[in-house]
């Protein structure tokens, strides 16, 4: 029986009322008296030396208030990388400075080298065009291909880095020799070379920032499209501009999607703040869609060789990978963690494989920076694993379902230490696989295939059994792994005198539904109506602290901080109730919104306690402070490990190569479910993005480093007709063992588990049609499928 209230209830999202009626308030909606407009000059070449920028004519143009170039920021700090990675030889990674505006050289098409501030947008735009015309940039040969970048020491993205290599990482280096030994003696080895295609994040709302400076107090305010305003405040204040954190407020109002791309601090944010101070007026900037394509941090972009060693029955003996990971022209904030600790640590999958070794070389190129994008490293790991397993099954003529089943870590093995450094606390991979087989009606596949065949279509079935590490947090762990920040989260529960509640959370909602789900949890715990609970987020002047939303961490980290703050409220409430009810604190119980004395009918409602806390006439003032507000920070002691089994059925048209996804079945284990409807929505969105990666999306730079997929004419986003109606099951639940909510995180699962299921299905369809194709790189477009069919 589904609940209709509190934890587990499928509540409709309260924020959707404003989003769906056009009443959301986004950064670009804000109009501020005296505002001015910034427009950036962006490089048209991928690589070039800035010879001269003559600002004279531009500065004299109508409405122009200021012109900035890289020269103006050469003495302030760079935008840092958040994780220090060490190479196999122990050397720290190479960290070139990432300036506010390019100085000396431009390093990718879209690299901003100047900015113009003017009274109107049109004037700023005209002036920026003039400035571009008065700028001389000597084009240098572009470095685009990763293998060539590493091989050619003469052409450098950063002059001080000879081989364009950021680091050469081995995980776990001590296991390398052991893994090599296994491969030497293994009865069977399957090798697969693949590309994990580069993706443009394409949030519906482009990035936007407004900088303000208040000369009377010396305070700054940055309103920006951020997934984590506190981290942005730290980076722009402490690292780049040198503003004391207590003089800068960062506000991220309604944000229209991020998918990772809005985690990071970008130079435009520093520019609008610096310009606002110089002019004493607000300075605003909103990206055009083309600017988003050129300058948002992209995702994925790995070239990988994976090898699987096994016996003839398909028992895994070892995995080994060599990956070239593109970081683009500069290190974005999480760019060094994404291809390493969010990728290599997942390379054992849900399998009891005894030996794994991962090698990642991270390469600078003259392309936009690459960083975490929904899934971040884990989709790359999952894709490599699930594809090579499928290939092995075909080579040895084994059933892909049975092979996975026999290699799964079993329920009696938890907690399970993987050979790549994680400890899985709980899971039941057999259960999700069984559930997927049941819900996805695998038994009926043969009949559906025969029906497709009648219509001349090749039908295929693809499986992917995935696992991920979520709730990116444990500070003691991430510190060991190179993180330069802690990744706890925080929440403040403020009970107002009249009993309604404001909850200030560090997590940031940019489409996830926190305002609804977090309120459900607080209301459930306090036995009060959900409507009495307001969730406040996205403003550093209101919330205690927070590390923001990414890595499917909001509920598992911030949600737990919030419940811990609620627990403190209840504990204090008990003290107040004990005084008011003239009972011992130990005898007070709290249930359904009432504090009562055990064994009596004496009770006080939550509202009465709250009122007493603020009107403390009958109150233990000698021992207890008035007021009812509590803050909790929560730093978990492990990641959470959601896992699941995804089934995809496709039809391939052998004449055109067109792939149609017929059905997609998800059997997920997210631990306890707070709101099933929100979970389904998250999975739908993730699978949609995964199908987009698998079938449609491709970011292509030509040999000159020109982005030739810079608009929706050439960059294919998945549309409604590209995706099926999804079947989502989350009934397999092994609650997380180390957080009190038992939750794991569901935001990225769909994007992690789905691409290999789609590609496996396409390869399966082709094989069933007698076309022996072992691999097609994503996106599996009609042209690529058709070519593969012709060449088979």
């Amino acid at each position, binding site marked *: 029986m589904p609940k209709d209230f509190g934890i587990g209830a499928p509540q409709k999202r309260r924020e959707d009322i404003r989003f769906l009626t056009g009443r959301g308030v986004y950064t670009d909606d804000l109009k501020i008296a005296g505002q001015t407009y910034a427009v950036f000059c962006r490089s048209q070449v991928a690589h070039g030396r800035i010879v001269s920028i003559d600002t004279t004519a531009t500065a004299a143009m109508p409405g122009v208030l200021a012109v900035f170039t890289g020269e103006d920021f050469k003495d302030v700090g760079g935008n840092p990388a958040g994780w220090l990675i060490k190479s196999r030889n122990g050397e720290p990674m190479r960290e070139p400075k990432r300036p506010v505006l390019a100085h000396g050289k431009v390093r990718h098409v879209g690299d901003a080298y100047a900015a113009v501030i003017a009274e109107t947008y049109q004037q700023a735009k005209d002036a920026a065009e003039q400035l571009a015309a008065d700028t001389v940039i000597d084009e240098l040969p572009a470095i685009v291909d990763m293998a060539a970048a590493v091989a050619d020491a003469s052409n450098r993205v950063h002059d001080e880095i000879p081989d364009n290599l950021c680091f050469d990482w081995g995980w776990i280096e001590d296991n390398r020799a052991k893994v090599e030994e296994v491969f030497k003696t293994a009865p069977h080895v399957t090798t697969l070379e693949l590309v994990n295609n580069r993706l443009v994040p394409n949030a519906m709302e482009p990035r936007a920032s407004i900088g303000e400076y208040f000369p009377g107090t010396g305070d700054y305010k940055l309103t920006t499209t951020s997934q984590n305003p506190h981290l942005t405040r730290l980076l722009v204040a402490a690292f780049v501009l040198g503003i004391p954190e207590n003089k800068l407020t960062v506000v991220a109002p309604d944000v229209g999607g991020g998918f990772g791309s809005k985690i990071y601090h970008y130079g435009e944010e520093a520019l609008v703040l610096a310009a606002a101070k110089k002019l004493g007026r607000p300075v605003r900037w909103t990206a055009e869609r*083309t600017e988003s394509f050129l300058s948002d941090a992209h995702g994925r972009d790995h070239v990988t060789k994976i090898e699987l060693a096994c016996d003839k029955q398909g028992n895994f003996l070892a995995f080994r990978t060599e990956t070239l990971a593109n970081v683009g022209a500069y290190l974005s904030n999480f760019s060094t963690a994404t291809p390493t600790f969010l990728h290599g640590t997942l390379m054992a999958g849900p399998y009891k494989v005894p030996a794994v070794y991962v090698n990642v070389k991270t390469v600078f190129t003259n392309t936009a920076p690459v960083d975490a994008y929904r899934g971040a490293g884990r989709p790359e790991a999952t894709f490599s694993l699930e594809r090579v397993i499928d290939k092995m099954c075909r080579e040895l003529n084994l059933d892909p379902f049975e092979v996975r089943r026999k290699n799964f870590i079993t329920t009696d093995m938890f907690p399970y230490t993987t050979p790549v450094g994680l400890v899985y606390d709980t899971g039941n991979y057999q259960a999700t696989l069984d559930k997927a087989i049941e819900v996805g009606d695998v038994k009926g596949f043969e009949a559906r295939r025969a029906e497709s065949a009648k219509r001349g279509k090749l039908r295929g079935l693809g499986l992917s059994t995935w696992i991920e590490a979520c709730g990116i947090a444990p500070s003691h762990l991430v510190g060991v792994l190179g993180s330069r920040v802690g990744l706890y989260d925080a929440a403040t529960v403020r009970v107002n005198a009249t009993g309604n509640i404001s909850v200030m959370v560090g997590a940031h909602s940019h489409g996830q539904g926190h305002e609804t789900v977090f309120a459900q949890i607080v209301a459930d715990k306090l036995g009060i109506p959900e409507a009495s609970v307001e969730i406040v987020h996205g403003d550093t002047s209101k919330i205690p602290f927070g590390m923001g939303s990414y890595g499917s961490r909001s509920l598992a980290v911030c949600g737990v901080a919030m419940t811990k703050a609620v627990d403190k409220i209840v504990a204090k409430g008990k003290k107040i109730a004990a005084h008011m009810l003239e009972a011992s604190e130990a005898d007070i119980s709290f249930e359904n919104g009432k504090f009562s004395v055990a064994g009596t009918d004496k009770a006080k409602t939550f509202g009465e306690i709250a009122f007493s806390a603020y009107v403390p006439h009958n109150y233990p003032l000698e021992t207890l402070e008035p007021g009812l507000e509590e803050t909790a920070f929560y730093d978990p002691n492990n990641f959470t490990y959601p896992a699941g089994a995804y089934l995809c059925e496709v039809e391939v048209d052998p004449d055109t190569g067109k792939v149609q996804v017929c059905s997609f079945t998800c059997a997920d284990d997210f631990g306890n479910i707070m709101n099933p409807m929100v979970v389904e929505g998250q999975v739908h969105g993730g699978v949609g993005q995964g199908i987009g990666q698998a079938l449609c999306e491709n970011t292509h730079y030509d040999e*000159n480093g020109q982005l030739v997929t810079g608009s929706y004419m050439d960059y294919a986003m998945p549309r409604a007709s590209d995706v099926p109606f999804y079947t989502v099951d989350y009934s397999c639940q092994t609650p997380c063992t180390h957080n009190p909510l038992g939750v794991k995180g569901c935001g990225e699962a769909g994007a992690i588990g789905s691409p290999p299921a789609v590609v496996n299905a396409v390869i399966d369809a082709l094989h069933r049609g007698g076309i022996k194709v072992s691999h097609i790189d994503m996106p599996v477009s009609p042209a690529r499928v058709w070519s593969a069919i012709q060449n088979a």
Partner: protein
Amino acid sequence: MELQDARQIAAPPDVVWAAILDPEILRDCIPGCESMTGSPEEGFEAVVVQKVGPVKARFTGVVHLSDIVPGQSVTISGEGKGGPAGFARGSARVTLTAEEGGTKLGYQVDASVGGKLAQLGSRLIDGFAKKLADDFFERFQQAVEGPAEPEGDGEGAEAPEGEAPKKGWFKRIIG
């Protein structure tokens, strides 16, 4: 992108060669050319207006001739900056071979674009470059052979001999 093609011109190689080195003929043959000044030795400065898909721009740039083998071959290179629209550059290696009834003019074109042109128009560039090259050599042929029919409409006529000189807009698009 790269493309190559050849066409027959009903004039002897020395006449064709002289025409290639004639700035007036070059100006008249470059589609969308608004002005052109300079000399074969010094190079030319040109202003050319072109529209690629959604991007229309006035390109200012230089055209120069290199690898000159008199009477036989030359490379015509150009680079144009279109301001916010981006830039385009390309070169055509032109070879002349005497043939019965005239000259065989072969050309090998290499072209690339950057900036907004690449971001928005790349899908159209291959077809566009081919059309531009065809237009150029079509006009060149007419200039050398003398117009049997009135000249094109300024966008470049591309009617092969024997057909009406102007196609309708539809045929021009699919042609």
